[in-house]
Each structure stands twice: as C-alpha cells, then as structure tokens.
C-alpha cells in the first residue's frame, strides 16, 4: 500500500528531469503532453517553474522602485500569469478542437503549463541581467523596454513548446495564432487589473492594486488615438482621479551623496508635452504595454530620473 502511495507521489512530484527537458527537449515534453504520458509530473513541475520564475522576475521588476514593491510585483506577476492560463485554457482547448486537433482537455492544460513554464524559466534567466541593468542606471522607459524585451524572449520560448505540441498538419498556424491572440487579450486585461508592477523610484507609497479605471482595451484604444494626435476630452478628469487615489510622489531626493541643484519636478502644460502616454503608464508597461494618455498638466522629471530609491 505504502509503495503505491509512494509511486503516486513520485508521479506527481516536481522533477528536475522534467525541468531540464522543458529547456532542452521541448518537442519531447510536448509529445508527452499529447500522449498523456506522466502529465502529473509535467504539470507539477511546470507550476513550480511558473511560480518561481515569474516571482523572481517580478521581484526584479519591483526592485526598480524597491521596498514593498519588490514583494508586490513578486506576488502579482505569477498571479497574472496563472490567472491568464486558467482563463485561456478552455479557449485553447476549443480552438484546437475546432481546428482539427481534438486533444483531451488534460493534454491542453499540461501543454499550456509546459509552455508557460518554459517562458517562466526564460524570465528567471533574464532576471539577473535585468537587475544589473537597473542597477547600472536604466531610466523608467528603458527599464520598461528591457522588461518588455525579456517578455518577448519568454514568449518565443513558450511558442516553441506550443507549436511542437500542436504537431504537424493543417490548421497548425491558425491554431497557434488563435492561442497567441487569446493569450494576449486575456494577459493584457489581467495584467491591467493587477498593475502596477514597474514603479518609479520617487513614488512614495505604491499601491498593491490601482483603483479600477478603464481597461486594457480602453487603454489600447486611447493610446492609439493619442498617437494619432486625437485626444479624448475625458482624459483630463480620468488622469486627475487616477493621481488622486493612487499615487503620492515624494519630492525627488538625490541618490548620490552630492545634492542636485535642479528642481525635482516641474509642471508642464499639456501642449508642451508630447503625449506618448507612457508617463501615466507606470507599472502597466511590462505586462500591459498600452497606457492612458497624458494629463492636461503633469509632472515631468527635470533631471535624469534614475537617481533615487530602487534596488
């Protein structure tokens, strides 16, 4: 009896071998998912990899501001990833089935987890590089770009597992496109709900979650319109309420021992500020690239931003 229990536990315990195979042999793991071979071990290992990899990456993202934000981001990034997978998997199953690959649901679940685990391992690998870049003085926008680049690499790694898992045959590319589109739509909204992740060092008290405002779709739409020079009238009030309820910006204190002589922030009228939208996008960039457009009057750094707080 105890031997059976031991065997059952071993079959569902996370395994370093599976972890190694996820990186070295994605085709083999994908095949095992399709053939329902030892799925318990694959899913358990994948869940551990996702949680660990995304948490470490989140911690590094949070370290841009430092302090409590490290913990916040370390919790929220794995949460966003796992919630996205939970919401997407039924859709993945439906897409693959209607496009000619009627895999059992458990195969689709394990394949999705395996793909996400591979992505999380890439995020884990990129975390120290990102941390070093932050430490060398990346500003907010560069940090967001660097994080987005890491996400891109992780996405490519995941896609490798996914495409192999779908196997050859008609409808493979369309199915993969469907997966990617659904994943991005859901990940965008989930990340939007759970933001901020990347917060400027001068932010005095970052909230765990921002107040509910718009959504990923609204932000993409508004940013698209802003980029074409079309500004919605409600943006001013929108931004106003946002700043009121979410952020307290501390006066920027220099990080270096020598005090700065320039003013920390200055008010700039709307017309003078290019409305790229990223100023208001603190925390949204790594997981949800789009962000609301600029407020009528906003604070812009008058000096190099990466001067205080952080790592």
């Amino acid at each position, binding site marked *: 009896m105890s031997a059976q229990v031991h065997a059952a536990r071993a079959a569902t315990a996370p395994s370093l071998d599976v972890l190694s195979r996820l990186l070295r042999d994605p085709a083999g793991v994908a095949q095992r998912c*399709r*053939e*329902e071979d030892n799925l318990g071990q694959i899913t358990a290992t994948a869940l551990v990899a996702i949680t660990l990899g995304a948490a470490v990456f989140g911690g590094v993202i949070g370290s841009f501001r430092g302090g409590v934000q490290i913990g916040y981001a370390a919790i929220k990034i794995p949460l966003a990833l796992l919630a996205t997978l*939970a*919401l*997407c998997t*039924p*859709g*993945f*199953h*439906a*897409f693959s*089935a*209607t496009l000619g690959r*009627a*895999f*059992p*649901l458990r*195969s689709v679940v394990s394949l999705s987890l395996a793909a996400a685990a591979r992505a999380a391992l890439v995020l884990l690998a990129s975390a120290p590089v990102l941390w070093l870049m932050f430490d060398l003085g990346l500003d907010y926008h560069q940090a967001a770009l660097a994080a987005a680049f890491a996400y891109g690499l992780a996405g490519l790694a995941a896609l490798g597992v996914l495409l192999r898992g779908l196997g050859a045959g008609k409808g493979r590319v369309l199915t993969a496109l469907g997966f990617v589109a*659904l994943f991005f*739509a*859901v990940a965008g*909204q*989930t990340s*939007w*709900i759970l933001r901020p992740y990347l917060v400027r060092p001068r932010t005095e008290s970052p909230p765990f979650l921002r107040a*509910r*405002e*718009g*959504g990923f*779709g*609204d932000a993409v*739409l508004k940013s698209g319109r802003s980029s074409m020079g079309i500004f919605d009238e409600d943006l001013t009030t929108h931004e106003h309420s946002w700043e009121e309820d979410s952020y307290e910006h501390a006066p920027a204190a220099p990080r270096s021992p020598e005090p700065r002589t320039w003013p920390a922030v200055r008010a700039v009228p709307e017309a003078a500020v290019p409305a790229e939208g990223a100023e208001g996008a603190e925390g949204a960039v790594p997981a949800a690239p789009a962000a609301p457009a600029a407020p009528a009057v906003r604070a812009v750094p008058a000096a190099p931003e990466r001067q205080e707080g952080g790592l």
Partner: protein
Amino acid sequence: MRAGWTAAFLTPDPAAPVDLRAEAARFCTGAGLAALYGLALGTREGGVSLLRHAVGVPAALVAVAGLAVPALFIALALFDAPLDPPRVVAASARAAASAGLILAGVAPAAALYVVSSNGEGAAIVAGGLGLVLGGVAGVSRLLRELGAGLAGQSEVRRLATGVVFAGFALFATALAARVWWATLPIFGGVS
C-alpha cells in the same frame, strides 16, 4: 493519442449512418455550451441579465438552424446538389457543436473583460468578438461539412454552390446578428 469527449463530440465517425437522435443531442449540447457564453456576458449586470444572455446567445444558433439551413438546403436542391436532409441536419448539429465549443471556450475570457471593463464599449467589443468567433466557427464548419459531400460536381454547379454558400454565410451572419442585437441586453436588446 486517446480520443477524448471533445473528439467524439465534434468529429463523429463520418462513415456511420446519421443518427438523428444523437445529432439532436449534439445540437442541444452545442446550444448549452453557447449558453455558458451568455452567462459570461450576463455577469456584467448579474441577476436576470444572466438568464437573458444565457437564452439569447443560443437563440441565434436555433434561428440559423431553423431558418437559414432549410433555406440553404432548398437552394442547393435547386441545383440538384447530392444532399439528403439527414446529412444537412447532422451538419447543422456539428456546426452548432463547433460554435458552442468555441463560445464556451472563450467564455472565461469574455467574463473577465465584461466584468472588469469600466466602459460599455470595451465590454461590448469583447462580447461581440466572442460571438463573431463562435459564428465563424459554426458557419465554416457547416459549409465545410456540406461542401465535402458536393465534391466531383461540374464547374457550373460548383460555381452555383459557391454562390449559394456565400449567400448563406451572409444571411446566417445577418440573422444571428439580428437575434443577438434584439435579445442580448449588453447590446441594448431586451432588458
């Protein structure tokens, strides 16, 4: 690879004779899955809206199967297409199954958008996208199933069939949109 429930649900043995009772069950299951998407849309307002959406979404499948498919069969018969009614019924049921499965699959994502979007516009777009996906899956499955039985036709008949299929796709889209527009509160329908 072991064939799961979904495989049996979507792709029954093509060589087997049509079992109308099984196809009716398949259609009802597809409609039931579509109702899950309706529930997801109803979560924005909650309460009775859940029920209204749960009825409204599969209503379009019923309308297309009850109104558009018979018209399609008649039009194809005019060109002497080799189709018998049980085959058309089976194709309709499988199309409803495909549409229902897609709708149920994207229901959690739709619920996320519908519940967490502040603006009505985002909720409407998200809800509408799911319906479009389900509709495309259903119509394309139906036409693929029927088209497979029409292989080996003359050039003229193939052209005529293509025109009929295109007309059906247009009509089914318009009909489904009309039903959803009229019945789903999220689009300003009955509330």
